[in-house]
């Protein structure tokens, strides 16, 4: 086994060491006898776009699930914004500023785009359930404030025309965009994107890439993304970590990773 150890924390220029937002150390996760993740360590710097790649079943989605607290690793520790944790629930992860999208779109299909995105603001609403039901006074004022933020996101992702459309009626590419919008509505510090471009055509992919770059650029959101399209990964990401069979086989800039022999072997197979 060959773990390409890169002095990642030191970053590319040591003079100006980037701030580490999320540090994953020696994490292992298994389901019964299946080892999904085996002793993986890497970190995510503040403000970067970090890609997680690997062949099918490499443990990429499991990794995301570990980061946002859905899975609890048996071994290892995770430090988010300087706070080390053993176990965390997704709710806590969300309140701490981690938002995500899913590989298979997970929206409220019967609700409109607007309502779906508003649901992303739930954690930021302070009035209780009964006030919300009244939609009056402070609750109304709160709703207006949140709506304003949501409208900015709608404008940002250019989905004004589907504001009132039930999400179930939208084409796949747009549903993906709505899901991103909902994640953005949480104003996350760390955004986890699970295959944001799966099943999209070239044009939709280009749009999505532009949105991801803009989110990173405009809001300063740190992004971790899983993606299969290597062209996209190379263009978007600052650094790439490569998983194979639950193990980390490479970590570095897109150029370094793409010339790494282990990565090439993992993707293309090795001649026997």
């Amino acid at each position: 086994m060959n773990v390409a150890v890169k002095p990642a924390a030191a970053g590319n220029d040591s003079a100006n060491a980037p701030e580490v937002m999320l540090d994953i150390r020696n994490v292992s996760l298994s389901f019964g006898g299946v080892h999904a993740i085996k002793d993986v360590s890497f970190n995510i710097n503040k403000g970067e776009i970090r890609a997680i790649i690997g062949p099918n079943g490499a443990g990429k989605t499991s990794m995301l699930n570990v980061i946002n607290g859905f899975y609890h690793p048996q071994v290892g520790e995770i430090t988010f914004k300087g706070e080390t944790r053993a176990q965390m629930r997704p709710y806590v992860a969300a309140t701490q500023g981690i938002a995500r999208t899913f590989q298979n779109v997970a929206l409220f299909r019967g609700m409109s785009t607007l309502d779906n995105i508003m649901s992303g603001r739930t954690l930021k609403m302070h009035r209780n359930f009964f006030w919300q039901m009244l939609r009056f006074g402070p609750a109304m004022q709160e709703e207006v404030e949140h709506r304003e933020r949501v409208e900015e996101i709608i404008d940002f992702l250019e989905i004004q025309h589907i504001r009132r459309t039930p999400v179930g009626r939208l084409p796949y590419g747009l549903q993906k965009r709505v899901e991103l919008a909902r994640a953005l509505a949480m104003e996350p510090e760390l955004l986890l994107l699970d295959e944001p471009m799966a099943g999209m055509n070239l044009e939709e992919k280009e749009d999505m890439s532009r949105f991801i770059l803009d989110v990173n650029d405009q809001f300063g959101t740190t992004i971790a993304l899983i993606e299969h399209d290597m062209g996209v990964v190379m263009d978007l990401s600052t650094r790439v970590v490569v998983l194979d069979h639950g193990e980390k086989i490479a970590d570095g800039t897109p150029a370094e990773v793409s010339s790494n022999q282990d990565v090439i072997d993992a993707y293309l197979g090795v001649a026997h």
Partner: protein
Amino acid sequence: MTAEARDASVHDTIPKLLLRNAKIRGARPAMREKDLGIWQTWSWAETLEEIRDLALGLRVLGLKRGDRVAIVGDNRPRLYWAICSAQSLGAIPVPVYQDSVAEEMGYVLDHAGVKFAVVENQEQVDKLLEIRETYKNLKEIVFDEERGLQNYDVDGVRSYATVQQLGRDSGVGEDVWRSEIAKGKAEDTAIILYTSGTTGRPKGVVLTQGACVWAADTAEKFDNLTEKEEVIAYLPMAWVGDHVFSYAQSYVSGYCVNCPESPETIIVDRREVGTTYAFAPPRIYENLITQTTVAMEDASAIKKKMFEYFLGVAREYGEDILNGKSVPLMARVKYWLGNFMVYGPLKNRYGLSKVRIGYTAGEAIGPEIFKYYRALGINLKQLYGQTEAAVYITGQPDGEIYADTVGTPMGGVEIKIADSGEVMYRSPGIFTEYYKNKEATRDTKTADGWVHSGDAGFIDDNGHLKIIDRAKDVGHLNDGTLFPPKYIENKLKFFPNIKEAVAFGDGRDEVTAFINIDLTSVGSWAERNNVVYASYQELAGHADVYKMIEEHVDAVNRELSREERVAGAQISRFLILHKELDPDDGEITRTAKVRRSLVNERYAVLIDALYDPSRKRQKIKTEVTFEDGRRGDIEGDVEIRDMKLHAIDRASFKEAAE
């Protein structure tokens, strides 16, 4: 509106009209834009401030009288203000089609000698920076939407707000700006509009302030426009129609122009605004009907019945009611009921409930489509115009509407038909010249001010102009039969399933045609009939689709056989193209007109096959350009269908003539 009358000799330029509007109706809305889901309004007084600040800012950056300023982007208030800002300093705005690729845009910018550009967003800034690498004259780029541009540290790229701030900080007072406006004259060049041109490079049509003001003034009188009209601006700013309807007319009549939230939200936005004065090419009206037809196919049986019944009532009496003719009482009751149950909600859906006058122009509209809207009680009228005429040549006066003519000359326009059959016109609105193209100017405009329209037509018995086709496109079959390609193509295109058609026949023995199916309409049909397809190409080649199109072509042939002049020009063979004709490939213009020469060249193999009776299929490979400029190939194996022609009943023409 009874405020002090407008004096054409004083208010002879658009910037002067701005000052006038700010003075006499300062509090009335001049412009609205939907932003973050809410309509924002600018009054005439606020509009003046916005325009003044930008103008003074541009002045600081070195904009001088006579300089050309490119305007690139969707319809945004700030871009309209930029036009007025430039004009107020005596500079010349040059709106450019925002979706043209860098190379096309570069040509126009270079040809017009543009020094400044005011653009909408990052996409356009990137395009212009690419152009600036080869075309060095472009000094300053000013952008409206800041998104994605915060970190651009490039010389001569600034935000709109920064430039306005420059203007405010310059210490130059409003009086200086006002004195610049006062220097403006009616003979000054107001704008250069590049026509997309079906042949060769685009030409820059130079219009004076006088021409623009004349055009707006004429329309105001023709349709009694007031400051209370509401207009929605969504057609390309580089198109003369938009320039007059959404810009010049607004300054002259003082009405409010509304900018939609995004190009996709127009129908909703139009409904919210309640437009009273509308202007659109036939394509827009066709699309609305196509959408309705598609939606009705999916509706329940009761709704379908109701829709069909009341539409029948509307077709029978709607037009007469609209024209104020007398109809039986029972018909009125039925129409009233229909209005309540069907027409009203439908008009509301289209966002046309409040439309007082709607115009269609730019292309011929199908009589069926035209009558459909009039039957619903929408006062849709036809207009014949050209960029070279500052739009207006003829228009249909209220109460004198014939589906197949384009009306009578509008105020101050003279018309004559040349011996060749070409329509010629003269008016105070005609263009000065084609920019830097003396030869083309000479070919189009005679010494005594008559303009060759390039369209063949005649004046019919009731004095209305009827346009047949582009003069140069009208041809003859080998047996001498008249062959007006567009006339035939339009008949085909009036079927919702057919999006585009190209007819061939000049100098041939018979007429043949290419067909593009309409993916919305045929796609919905496929869904309902369980036809599975993976691509446009596959659907286009489907046997059932061919059968459907064959029926349409047959119907067109039957119609043609009943018209004396074109009865011999029935379509004998056709094929459905394996790809859509696309402006990115240059096959149709940005305003969706077919470029015949290019199509002839690119699809020569298919045309040859159409005229070779032994061929039943033909393979073809065509190059396509993707939106980002990359190229690829599409290969197809296209089926060719023979048609049975309808017998021509010469006797019936004689009867009709007697």
